[in-house]
């Protein structure tokens, strides 16, 4: 997902057991935890990692799509793509705000991304080679993201839940515009249909990876479930995604690149092949097709923007000082 492999931080020191129990009771009762409320250190640190990773994914996720803004096939498609990429920036900002309430600064988070102490979703390390990839990204990548984000609207941390509510409201436009691109290409010339099929072939397995490794290999998720930071198992969401997406592909007349794909009457869902988890861990480690390019783009943006940040910071400090002098 946009936040993958989030391990529960259980390194908390001897914390007041009674307080921890009372905290868990609040979560069990469905109460939201707010920034100034007491919380276990592990809960706070795990959330910073998860929300931070989610925020970074929104920001880095602008790169593969920004790649196509200047080459969109029509002015209408261009304005739509611009709006979508702008939304991703907004989503990143909502999430950074939520993470900041946990006591981490925006700059610290950015630095952790740039020196690779924090990650972003593996999906954005894949290239977007043709216009059809804009369709596949919206349809599959945003579709997979929605699957995970809808339950997170009920997560226990108030600012995170509220950010997710806003994001979910905006996200469904993203998926629909992607499906719309695929639909138009699939109904177009044979060459256009081939483009759509190739995009589906490229993005199918990376999209399945977004849900994270199989639950059987996913340690640490129990604590995150108890804290209501993680709401569903990885396999459960992946199954749901496949079950919803296969009929959509059939409608488009496109073929899911999985020969083993078959409806299983008994479980009421599809049997399907999992992605290559070796590839997944390799991409997470930094060896995906675009890891270097993405981080270099972020580093360049950060460094090129330094003079603007510094100049306006000086302006803000000057204003604050003058206000203080006037008040004195």
């Amino acid at each position, binding site marked *: 997902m946009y936040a993958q492999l989030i391990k529960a931080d259980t390194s908390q020191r001897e914390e007041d057991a009674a307080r921890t129990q009372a905290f868990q009771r609040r979560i069990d009762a469905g109460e939201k935890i*707010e*920034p*100034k*409320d*007491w919380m276990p250190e592990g809960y706070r640190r795990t959330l910073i990692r998860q929300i931070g990773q989610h925020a970074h994914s929104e920001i880095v996720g602008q790169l593969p799509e920004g790649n196509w803004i200047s080459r969109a096939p029509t002015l209408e498609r261009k304005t739509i793509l611009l*709006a979508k990429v*702008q*939304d991703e920036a*907004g989503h990143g*900002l*909502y999430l950074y*705000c939520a993470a*900041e*309430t*946990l*006591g981490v*600064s*925006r*700059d*610290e988070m950015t630095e952790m991304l740039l020196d690779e102490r924090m990650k972003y979703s593996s999906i954005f390390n894949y290239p977007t080679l043709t216009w059809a990839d804009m369709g596949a990204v919206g349809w599959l990548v945003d579709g997979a993201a929605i699957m995970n984000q809808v339950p997170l609207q009920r997560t226990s941390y108030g600012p995170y839940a*509220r*950010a997710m509510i*806003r994001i979910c409201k*905006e996200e469904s436009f993203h998926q629909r515009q992607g499906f719309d691109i695929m639909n138009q290409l699939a109904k177009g010339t044979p060459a256009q249909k081939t483009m759509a099929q190739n995009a589906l072939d490229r993005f199918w397995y990376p999209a399945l990876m977004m849900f994270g490794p199989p639950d059987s290999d996913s340690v640490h998720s129990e604590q995150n479930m108890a804290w209501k930071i993680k709401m569903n198992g990885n396999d459960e969401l992946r199954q749901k995604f496949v079950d919803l997406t296969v009929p959509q592909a059939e409608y488009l007349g496109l073929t899911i690149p999985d020969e083993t794909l078959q409806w299983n009457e008994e479980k009421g869902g599809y049997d399907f092949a999992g992605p290559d988890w070796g590839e997944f861990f390799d991409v997470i480690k930094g060896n995906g097709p675009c890891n270097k390019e993405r981080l270099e783009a972020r580093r360049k943006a950060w460094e090129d923007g330094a003079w603007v*940040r*510094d*100049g*306006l*910071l*000086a*302006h*803000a*400090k*000057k*204003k*604050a*000082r003058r206000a*203080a002098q006037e008040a004195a």
Partner: protein
Amino acid sequence: MTSPKDDSSSTNPQAPQPVNQLANQPTSQNEWPLWEVFIRGQHGMSHRHFGSLHAANAEMAIKNARDVYTRRNEGVSIWVVQANDITASSPSDKGPLYEPAEDKVYRHPSFYKIPDDIGAM
């Protein structure tokens, strides 16, 4: 004209550091100030807290708030206020602040039994 460098080095070290009472730490001294954003969704409604953002001054905060929080006509009016200027009640004051209201049921109309014969009141 003062250069930016002079400005930052002349910050009075004696001045109390502003503290953000809404979150867990003072905002970083190396970031643009944090602003809380309040938006009136429709005419006739009150402004509601939408979130926060960083900006160098109030004008920029309003412009950023427009881009971040009202991309789909969510607002007809925006307020921004520096987070450090907000005084917030503390979660530990919850008892002393709100418990006194709990046993004053007579403040609600449902406390009073009005005979059926009286009709709507």
